[in-house]
């Protein structure tokens, strides 16, 4: 399938990175729904975080005003993005940093690989970063003989488990404590300090095992790779928000720091952080403030890395920006509140979405980054209940965007095939019938024949093909005995 690209702007290329699933969502979701352990893990974790978020958001008297300001600041960034990017580049460069530009994942991976080689390193420590997950940086580094150690606890669990992340904030949300203990015992010794043999499944003991396992790597690392939560255009300041201190270790101890950042992660002014440093932690981990936030501006002599490289990544973001009805997805600050409230995500988990960006935001972001043809099932991975919009700290109207993207999927399919799909055929005949009052009345009367198909439950549970596509997953109601028009005509 090909879709006419928006204004000719290229989307994220296939074959590199993690934005596309191997299977369409309904198929992957069916498998996930059969995993009772997964559903228990998810229900417990999302239930916990929902309650925490609600409590700390509830105590902020000006939450609505902060949310409105957050959305407005991000819209301001998107409208003037070229100017802000140039301003950021000037500031970072003036403060001793080096700025690189990457059109897509392949180019970003190549730039980072060469920077690591230039630094003379064959291993790097990594701070959890969605952008580097998106572009498949670890795989690219491995192919170049460079070992990348994930240092966030959840990323470590995922990496040691030869697994993939399933949540933006807590990539190992699909694992419970007993599974994590087993992974640590089995895998840690293969790549470094083994876990203690008497390791229990208490979260405290598991965190301690991670601390010991990574300590030496932190103290000796020459190169770190991070993402960025925010970059301030007017000052060149970068910010990373975290909890464990692994971010501080990576951002402070190595000689060389490479930060990979999507071009949309800017804010115009230093002052704007006063909004986002309130919105993000409360929406994300449900805390008043996350334990650690690090901010740096270029190179600080005698303090932290003495070489700093910033890689600015497009990879489908400009294509997303080009759709006026879809671009607000680029406001996203990756808090993951929408995942935690989504009834679909809570049941299927993140892997079913096939992209590093799962859940409601993933359903609108992934298809735009790749072009809707490559993630055509994701805009349908939603009940349109609206819970995601309610909790979004930057007020992205995800339900409305999903409907818009569904229309783009339909357009893309129509553009591809000369033979109408069953859905198109049904819609075309409906249009024909609805076009004329006489035809519509006749069609309504004819539909009463459908009542003959209903059994004792007065539901249509199995229609013949092609309508079986509908009744495969839902019942259709029986047509009424009398249409509204008939009733009206007789009163």
């Amino acid at each position, binding site marked *: 399938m090909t879709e006419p690209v928006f*204004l000719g*702007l290229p989307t994220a290329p296939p074959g590199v990175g993690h934005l596309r699933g191997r299977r369409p969502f309904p198929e992957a979701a069916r498998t996930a729904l059969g995993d009772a352990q997964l559903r228990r893990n998810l229900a417990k*974790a999302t239930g*916990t975080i929902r309650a925490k978020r609600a409590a700390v958001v509830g105590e902020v*008297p000006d939450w609505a005003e902060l949310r*409105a*300001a957050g959305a407005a600041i991000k819209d*301001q960034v*998107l409208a003037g993005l*070229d100017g802000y*990017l140039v301003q950021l*580049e000037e500031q970072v460069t003036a403060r001793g940093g080096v*700025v*690189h*530009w*990457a*059109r897509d994942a392949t*180019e970003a991976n190549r730039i980072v690989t060469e920077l690591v080689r230039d630094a003379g390193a064959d291993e790097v420590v990594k701070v959890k970063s969605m952008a580097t997950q998106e572009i498949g940086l670890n795989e690219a580094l491995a192919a170049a003989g460079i070992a990348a150690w994930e240092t966030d606890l*959840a990323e470590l669990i995922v990496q040691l488990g030869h697994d993939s992340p399933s949540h933006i904030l*807590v990539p190992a949300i699909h694992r*419970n404590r007993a599974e994590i203990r087993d992974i640590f015992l089995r895998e840690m010794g293969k790549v470094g300090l083994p876990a203690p043999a008497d390791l229990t499944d208490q*979260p*405290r003991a598991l*965190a301690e095992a*991670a*601390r010991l396992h990574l300590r030496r790597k*932190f*103290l*000796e690392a020459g190169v770190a790779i991070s993402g960025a939560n925010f970059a*301030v255009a007017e*000052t060149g300041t970068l910010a990373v928000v975290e*909890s*464990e*201190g*692994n971010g*501080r*270790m990576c951002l*402070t*101890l190595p000689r060389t720091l490479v930060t990979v950042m999507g*071009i949309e992660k800017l804010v115009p002014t*230093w*002052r704007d952080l*006063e*909004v986002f*440093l309130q919105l993000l932690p409360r929406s994300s981990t449900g805390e*008043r403030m996350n*334990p*650690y*936030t*690090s*901010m740096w*501006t270029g190179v*600080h002599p*005698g*303090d*932290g890395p003495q070489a700093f490289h910033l890689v600015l990544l*497009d990879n489908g973001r*400009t294509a997303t*920006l080009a759709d006026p009805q879809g*671009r607000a997805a680029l406001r996203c600050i990756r808090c993951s509140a929408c995942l935690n409230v989504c009834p679909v995500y809570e049941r299927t988990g993140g892997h079913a979405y096939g992209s590093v960006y799962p859940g409601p935001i993933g359903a609108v972001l992934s298809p735009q980054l790749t072009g809707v043809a490559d993630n055509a099932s994701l805009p349908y991975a939603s009940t349109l209940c609206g819970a995601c919009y309610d909790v979004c700290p930057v007020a992205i109207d995800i339900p409305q965007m999903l409907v818009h993207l569904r229309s783009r999927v339909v357009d893309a399919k129509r553009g591809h095939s000369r033979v109408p799909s069953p859905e198109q055929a049904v819609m075309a005949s409906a249009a024909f019938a609805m076009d004329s009052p006489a035809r519509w009345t006749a069609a309504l009367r004819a539909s009463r024949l459908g009542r003959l198909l209903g059994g004792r439950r007065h539901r249509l549970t199995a229609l013949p093909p092609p309508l079986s596509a509908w009744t495969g997953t839902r019942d259709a109601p029986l047509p009424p005995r009398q249409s509204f028009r008939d009733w009206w005509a007789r009163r």
Partner: protein
Amino acid sequence: MRAGADGTSGGHGEAPGGAREEVLARVRTATGGGPAPPPPAREYRTADHPAVGGEELLELLVDRLVDYRALIRRSTTAMVAATVVAALTERGARRVAVPDGILPAGLERLEPGIELVGDDPPLSPAQLDGLDGVLTGCAVAIAETGTIVLDAGPGQGRRALSLVPDYHLVVVTAAQVVATVPQAVARLDPSRPQTWISGPSATSDIELDRVEGVHGPRTLEVIVCS
């Protein structure tokens, strides 16, 4: 690779057709020179919004810090040295890193049992890892969120100093405490490296249950001076 060295990934001065020019051109095509959106309305509580002060403010800070399971001691500017000694003694800390400007210059020991280790020449990560703790001041503290901000100013040292030792003792004075995040942002200088600290190192990565103590200092103790 250096910026612009191959004309595809560089910064200023790269050849036309390089990544920088192409990404910027794509952005301009995508935004299409539409009307600029209005400047954001800042109807939230900005830095000049009236907020609590005095003892109420300090109590709010203490309440939030306790919530993060930080250890707290109340003291006064006159008594702070004794409180520091008490905290370090109770902790059993014998060798403690101290940045310039937190204690009188040239002081090598606090009590006979507590050795003070300066950072000049800079301590290596391994040396820092071998210390029992670190004593610092701070730039700003935010009461509503229980956050202490270090910006490498006097008495705070470089970032690694307050990171690697497993015990961090911070002195906060009343004048450094503000109520809200916007008030803190207004006081801070973005050209300085900053670390915002809200409680000890923690993780919620296992079943979204918060556990204190991963890679950063596992014990944060705060002396709040009136």
